[in-house]
């Protein structure tokens, strides 16, 4: 009951703090897919199925004990078709159906209590001579072992959810092989992020692929036709295009420029004549600034990561611009952005955000007068814009500069 109450309070806070992405059409789509994936019958006691989107650029999904399943904007942007979406929902629904949260909570709490008791023994045991020292050592070892068993139990539950998802996809007319592709997609990373994982609550990718493949082989499925696969792909992409756009902006805001660029490419490939999609790609190139499109080897070292963590965004840019590769990358990215802004405006000259993005780029490229023109155009098209004051100040600053 405590867990259920906490779930409700957590959701309320998430909604209030702008953590939930609200899009009626998308929610309806998720609901349709979700209801199809969940086995018929009443939901477990005190739960109700709800499928929602959390605003996070990181690929993640989780289920709350009250039956709410959250998929991140980052995850929805990474997936490629409806079968993959169904596989994620099936996996998460297994956690609710099998009451995994309760089982994990109970088990973890008992183990933590034991860890605390071990800590008490460890603190006082040395006062009791050799026997005491032995007790202290034993207590230390058992504390470490207990921590490890918490993660191991969590991996067990994850495996159970994977197997459930595989069976569900086989039962439905979704392409079950897409579950394996989903695992691989979850490992996709475009950023130079150095994450040291000592404990993992999910099994490793290879293990997941191995045991899920075994499940799929022992339960062969009628192949899904190419036409049906195309339907799953197009339906998924058209329903998630808006959230994908939102997520590109979210990645830019979170300084994950390479991810923003890769996702904007997906948008442009899906709808190449959309001024909005091209604008997002232009924005991603502009924001990429002095960074190369691909992560450079030296960025992946622990040292480089630590240095980056200590810098403000401005300092990081200055440091990159002090190097020849940084300056070269900036030039290339600016050229790409320039071409794309022009294309976006060619397709829709009233695209206010394209004028704004182009103005930022031109200001960055030391072409202030042209930038001012596009700022003015933006204000003409969006007279009520929230950032109107900011843009007017920028124009004033440009006007105050002495002519070159």
């Amino acid at each position, binding site marked *: 009951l405590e867990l259920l109450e906490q779930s409700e309070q957590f959701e309320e806070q998430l909604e209030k703090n702008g953590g939930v992405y609200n899009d009626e059409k998308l929610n309806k789509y998720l609901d349709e897919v979700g209801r199809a994936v969940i086995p018929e019958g009443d939901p477990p006691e005190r739960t109700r199925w709800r499928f929602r989107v959390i605003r996070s650029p990181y690929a993640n999904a989780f289920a709350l004990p009250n039956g709410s399943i959250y998929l991140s904007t980052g995850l929805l942007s990474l997936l490629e078709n409806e079968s993959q979406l169904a596989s994620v929902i099936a996996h998460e629904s297994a956690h609710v159906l099998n009451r995994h949260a309760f089982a994990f909570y109970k088990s973890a709490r008992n183990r933590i209590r034991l860890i605390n008791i071990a800590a008490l023994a460890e603190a006082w045991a040395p006062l009791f001579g050799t026997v005491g020292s032995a007790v202290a050592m034993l207590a230390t070892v058992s504390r470490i072992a207990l921590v490890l068993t918490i993660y191991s139990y969590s991996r067990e539950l994850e495996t159970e959810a994977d197997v459930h998802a595989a069976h569900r996809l086989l039962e439905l007319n979704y392409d079950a092989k897409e579950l394996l592709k989903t695992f691989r997609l979850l490992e996709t990373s475009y950023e130079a992020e150095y994450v040291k994982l000592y404990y993992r609550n999910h099994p490793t990718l290879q293990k997941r692929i191995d045991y899920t493949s075994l499940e799929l082989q022992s339960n062969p499925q009628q192949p899904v036709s190419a036409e049906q696969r195309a339907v799953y792909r197009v339906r998924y992409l058209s329903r998630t295009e808006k959230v994908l756009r939102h997520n590109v902006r979210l990645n830019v805001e979170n300084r994950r420029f390479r991810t923003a660029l890769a996702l904007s490419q997906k948008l442009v490939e899906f709808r190449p004549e959309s001024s909005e999609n091209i604008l997002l790609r232009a924005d991603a190139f502009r924001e990429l600034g002095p960074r190369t499109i691909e992560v450079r080897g030296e960025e992946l070292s622990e040292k480089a990561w630590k240095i980056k*963590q200590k810098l403000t965004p401005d300092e990081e840019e200055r440091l990159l611009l002090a190097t020849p590769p940084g300056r070269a990358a900036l030039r290339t990215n600016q050229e790409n952005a320039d071409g794309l802004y022009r294309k976006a405006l060619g397709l829709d000259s009233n695209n206010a955000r394209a004028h704004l993005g182009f103005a930022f780029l031109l200001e960055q490229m030391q072409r202030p007068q042209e930038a001012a023109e596009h700022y003015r155009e933006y204000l003409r098209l969006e007279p009520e814009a929230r*950032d109107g004051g*900011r843009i007017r100040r920028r124009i004033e600053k440009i006007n105050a500069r002495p002519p070159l």
Partner: protein
Amino acid sequence: LLPALLLLLTAETAAAQYLHPQFQSGERNVHTVLLLPPRVYVQKEGMKGADAMFKESEEVRDSLSAMVSTVLREKRLNVMELPPPTAGRGGDELKYLLADMQDRYDRIGRLLDNKPKDVRKGRFSLGDEVSVLDPDDAADALVFIRASGTRLTKWRRASEVFVLGAHLWSEITISLAVVDSKTGEVLYFAKCQAKGDFVGKTDQVLLQPLQKALRDLPAPASRGDVVPKSP
């Protein structure tokens, strides 16, 4: 027993403040601030582990916001608050915007926590995008507030005494930043800590540390004052 005794003796409060050089010199002035909703996280720590306290976090958040507002008003500042977002699309957009700016502050906040003294060098800025939170240009500065606290259960406290641990009190850490609403520069940063029942007796436990944290915040120069200009 020494660390425990020292802690008992210092179970008061601690606070530190850092000012942007132009704010310190009076070159920049703040008359009106826009108080953003604080981000507060409170957890309960017992023998069986830690649990988030969402409801209590909200209660502390509301009290904290009201108290900061009072302390700022005592310093002759005009205090504005963000209107609650309306339902529907426009309301959602505003919620997202606010969440993104709060996240942006949190990213800088990590650096601020590590090197708060660098505020004196004018090192930190959130960028001029922050001005979207004040589209009418009514405020000179935005106030970001963060608090993170742990409430210990009786058993947990007893066990801490037993193992001669350092955490004998429920404890909350609060940080506040005054950010230029046009440029996004961090003008003032303060951090304080309070020990005691900050959930049950929020006002009693938090008021004094907050007053200390905002002690060095310059009072606004009256509109007629001559403000020195930068060369």
